C-alpha cells in the first residue's frame, strides 16, 4: 500500500527545475553579497539641509504660474525592468535605479528652481502640539500639502504658507545651508557617492535618503544613490509597505535605533520613487527625563508622498 507521504511525492509531479536565468540571477546576487564592503558608509545622522531657512526674514509676494510643462518632469518611459521578480534588496534597488535613469531630464540653469511638492500624513495640529514626537494616530491624522521651491544656485527659497507664496532671498542676516548643485550633480556613479559620503563637506553630514526628498536630483544621480544604497549591508526590504494614498508600495531602507525602519517607498509596478516613511518594526520604550515614549510595532512616525519633483522657472510654478 502506498502511504500518503509517497502519494504527496508522486502526485505533484517531478521536481521543478529553475530556469538558467533564475539560477544565474540568484548566484550573481550571492556573489555580489560576498563583495567586501567599505566601512563607515552608513551614516545615520540626518542633515537639516534646509532647516535654517526658518531664521530668514521673509517677504511675501505672489507669483503667477506660467503653467507650462517642464521637460524634466518625472516620466517613466520604459517598461522592461532588469529584474522582473527581484529576489533581494540589491535587485529592488537596481530596478529603482533603472527606472530613475529613464526619467526625461534637461540640466537646469542656475536661476531655475527645484520644485518639491509632497503630501505628508500628520496628526491633527491640536494633537500634534501636545504630542510632537508621537506616532501617527489612526483617526487623528490629516494630509498636509507642502510646496517648496529652491533655486538651483541656492540663493532663493520659497514656500506656500497660509495659502500665500513666501519668497526669501539670501543676503545680509538671511542665510541657510544648502548643498552645492555642482557637488550634487557630480554624483553620477555609486563610487562617487561613496566617496562623497565618506568625505563629507565639513559643514554637513549627509543622509542620502533625506537628500532624495529635498532636492530634485538628475536621473543619473538618483540612480547612483540607489546603487550605492544597494551595496550597504544594513538595507532591508519591506515588500508590503502601504503608501499614503493606498497604492501598494515597496519599502527599502535601514533600521534606526534597533526598532525604527526608515524606508524609501517605491511603486510596486514601476519602481518609481514615490515617498518615504518611518515605521516601528518592534515594540520599544524610550526612557525620557519627564516621561517614557512607548512605541508599538507597526506605529508609523512619518509618511510622505512625493507628488512632484521637477525643475521650474520661478517660484509659484508647479509644472
Amino acid at each position, binding site marked *: *500500500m*502506498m*502511504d*500518503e*507521504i*509517497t*502519494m*504527496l*511525492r*508522486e*502526485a*505533484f*509531479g517531478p*521536481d*521543478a*527545475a*529553475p530556469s538558467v536565468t*533564475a*539560477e544565474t*540571477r*540568484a*548566484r550573481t*546576487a*550571492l*556573489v555580489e*553579497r*560576498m563583495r567586501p564592503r567599505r566601512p563607515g558608509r552608513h551614516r545615520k545622522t540626518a542633515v537639516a539641509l534646509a532647516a535654517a531657512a526658518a531664521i530668514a526674514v521673509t517677504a511675501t509676494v505672489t507669483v503667477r504660474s506660467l503653467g507650462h510643462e517642464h521637460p524634466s518632469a518625472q516620466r517613466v518611459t520604459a517598461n522592461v525592468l532588469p529584474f522582473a*521578480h*527581484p*529576489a*533581494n534588496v540589491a535587485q529592488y534597488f537596481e530596478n529603482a535605479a533603472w527606472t530613475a535613469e529613464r526619467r526625461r531630464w534637461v540640466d537646469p540653469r542656475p536661476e531655475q528652481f527645484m520644485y518639491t511638492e509632497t503630501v505628508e500624513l500628520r496628526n491633527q495640529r491640536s494633537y500634534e502640539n501636545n504630542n510632537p514626537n508621537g506616532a501617527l494616530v489612526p483617526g487623528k491624522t490629516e494630509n498636509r500639502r507642502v510646496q517648496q521651491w529652491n533655486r538651483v544656485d541656492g540663493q532663493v527659497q520659497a514656500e506656500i504658507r497660509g495659502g500665500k507664496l513666501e519668497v526669501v532671498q539670501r543676503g545680509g542676516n538671511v542665510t541657510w545651508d544648502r548643498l552645492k548643485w555642482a557637488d550634487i550633480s557630480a554624483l553620477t556613479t555609486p563610487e562617487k557617492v561613496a566617496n562623497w559620503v565618506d568625505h563629507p563637506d565639513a559643514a554637513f553630514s549627509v543622509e542620502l535618503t533625506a537628500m532624495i526628498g529635498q532636492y530634485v536630483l538628475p536621473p543619473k544621480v538618483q540612480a547612483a544613490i540607489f546603487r550605492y544604497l544597494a551595496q550597504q549591508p544594513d538595507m532591508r526590504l519591506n515588500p508590503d509597505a502601504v503608501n499614503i494614498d493606498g497604492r501598494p508600495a515597496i519599502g527599502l531602507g535601514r533600521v534606526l535605533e534597533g526598532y525604527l525602519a526608515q524606508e524609501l517607498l517605491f511603486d510596486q509596478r514601476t519602481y518609481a520613487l514615490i515617498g518615504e516613511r518611518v515605521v516601528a518594526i518592534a515594540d520599544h520604550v524610550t526612557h525620557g527625563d519627564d516621561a517614557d515614549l512607548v512605541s508599538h510595532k507597526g506605529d508609523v512616525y512619518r509618511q510622505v508622498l512625493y507628488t512632484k519633483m521637477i525643475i521650474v522657472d520661478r517660484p509659484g510654478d508647479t509644472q
Partner: protein
Amino acid sequence: MTLTRTQADTDADLIEQAKRAPERFTAVFDRHYRHIYAYAARRLGPDLAEDVASETFLIAFDRRNRYDRSHADARPWLFGIASNLIARHARAETRRYQALARTPAANVVDGDADAIAGRLDARAVRGRLAAALEELSEPVRSVLLLVAWAGLSQAEVATALRIPPGTARSRLHKARQEMRRALGTADRLEGDE
C-alpha cells in the same frame, strides 16, 4: 591562506571555510540551490520560488558565522530558512492549492487490475491532497512537506524549524491523519503503522 575544496568537504566544512573565504559559500549554493528552488516551487509556484530560493542563500550567507558546524549537512538549516520565507507567502500558497484542487489530474488510475488492487495512483488524487494541504495550518503543513517534498527526516525537520522533536512528531502525525482522511485511507493505513 589557500583553501582547496575536496570531495570530502561537508557543508559544515564549506560554511566554516566561508567565514574566512566568503567565495566558498558558492559551493553550498551549487549543491543545494536546485533542491531549495524545487521545494519552494512546489509550495508557491515558479515565480515566488525564484525569490525565495535566492533570498534563502543570501540570508544563509549572512548568517554563516552562526552556523552550528556539528551539523555536517546544511539542508535542514537551508530548508528552515526557506520555510520561514515561504511562510510569508501563506496566501499565495493557499491560492495555489485551491487552484490545484480545482484542476483535474492529467492522469487517472489506468486499467491495470493489479495496480488498481495494489495501490492508488497518486496523481489521480492530487486534487484531494491539495485541498487537504490548504486546510492545514502553516506550521503543520511545513512539517509534512519538509518530510514529503524536501526529504528531511523527522529529526531534521525539528532542527530546520527549531521546534522540539516531540512537536515535530505530533504535527507530522496530525498532518498525515488529515492526508489519509482526504484520501479515504484512514482506516486501512491506521493499522499499518
